[in-house]
């Protein structure tokens, strides 16, 4: 392969969020956080931003902590941080289980949680997880801030609700009480590579019966999707093997997997069935 070098750009490393937002008024400006997705696309020259706004010198964005009853994850929280639970209870353990599947250690040291949400790769573990949890995205621009729910965030292939001039400054995840359970399963051909299908399940079990359930699928189309019908199949039921099998079957039947160079649609549908079953079994194991 020919040498791959990014096209020229102007580089700024502001010390404050206000400084970064001011620079993002420029149409050609892109945020550089961990750079683990942006820099490869620049090397391929699929992205040629005229201005890079490096936010790594803004310490106020480096946090992942409980705030107002949620886990608030700032724009500079690195993947690797989540290897140690950053929240008590099931949420911290879920994120610690998922992060092991996010690329590789030397990527996790720099790549950021919010960066994954802004890049919105269909096979991103964090994107499917945030959708399953019903997280909220905080977007800031030079003119104000707003919040976007996970259900409205993912709009298409690498496309989110983020507007020009805006930056994703924080993701908020609801804390999970002790009666919540979780499961995560994905299939990829090589360790750390993009998954062909994944399932994230979070459910609340009370008195031996599933009271609430959310299942998100990733890696199968342009965006992560909620498997609403599959979650409905669980609610009000005692989580037996038969109920889990029905939910997994429903997830496979109701999803719309895409065919690509890596796998045909029907193969992905089969993986959705298997990954949903595995995630639910994990969640409901005693």
């Amino acid at each position: 392969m020919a040498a791959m070098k990014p096209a020229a750009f102007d580089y700024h490393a502001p010390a404050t969020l206000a400084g970064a937002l001011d620079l993002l008024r420029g149409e050609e400006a892109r945020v550089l956080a961990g750079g683990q997705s942006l820099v490869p696309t620049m090397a391929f020259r699929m992205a040629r931003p005229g201005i890079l706004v490096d936010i790594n010198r803004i310490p106020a964005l480096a946090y992942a902590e409980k705030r107002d009853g949620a886990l608030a994850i700032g724009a500079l929280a690195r993947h690797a941080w989540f290897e140690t639970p950053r929240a008590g209870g099931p949420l911290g353990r879920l994120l610690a289980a998922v992060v092991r599947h996010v690329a590789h250690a030397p990527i996790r040291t720099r790549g950021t949680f919010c960066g994954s949400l802004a890049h919105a790769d269909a096979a991103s573990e964090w994107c499917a997880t945030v959708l399953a949890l019903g997280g909220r995205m905080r977007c800031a621009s030079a003119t104000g801030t707003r919040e976007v729910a996970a259900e409205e965030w993912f709009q298409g292939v690498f496309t989110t609700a983020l507007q020009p001039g805006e930056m994703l400054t924080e993701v908020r995840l609801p804390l999970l009480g002790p009666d919540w359970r979780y499961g995560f399963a994905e299939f990829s051909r090589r360790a750390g590579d993009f998954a062909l299908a994944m399932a994230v399940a979070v459910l609340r079990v009370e008195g031996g019966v599933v009271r609430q359930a959310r299942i998100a699928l990733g890696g199968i189309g342009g965006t992560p999707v909620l498997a609403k019908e599959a979650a409905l199949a669980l609610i009000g039921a005692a989580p037996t093997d038969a109920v889990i099998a029905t939910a997994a079957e429903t997830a496979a039947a109701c999803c719309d997997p895409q065919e690509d160079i890596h796998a045909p649609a029907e193969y992905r549908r089969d993986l959705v069935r298997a990954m949903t079953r595995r995630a639910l079994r994990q969640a409901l194991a005693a």
Partner: protein
Amino acid sequence: MSRHVVSFTVNGVPKRVELEARRTLADMLREDCGLTGTHLGCEHGVCGACTVLVDGEPVRSCLMFGVQAEGCAIRTIEGLAAPDGTLNVLQRAFRTHHGLQCGFCTPGFLMLATWLLERDERLDEAALRHAVSSNLCRCTGYQTILDAIRAAAQELDRWEDSAAGEARR
């Protein structure tokens, strides 16, 4: 486009380099510092050949810009052996266990393993295999690389035997 002056240390030696913003850390090390031990394989973050340590953590140097290294302490393959050329424990283990053949990927594996051996947690078989999956080698089949890092960890008293590890070997 923008040019910048960057100050940092490489293997403890202070450096000051003027470069274009688009210069990657890998190219800065190779072209501006003359440290060609860091190898570039894929240049898009997949192969791990260019792994170096930045402030103690492993980083793909093709996915960081040189200008971002301002104030950082960088360690490369050139810093492993003693000044007189005596190989360190890890390098010797790679030689003893045939952890390299063509050698192209070796700098990346050595820097990744250097980090593994310096962490607070002791290394076990599962953590070793999980971590080493980040780098590609087209020659060895990986077993000899695992053997080398395991042997170095044992020699440095950083190894933890585990049931899972015994079953896999």
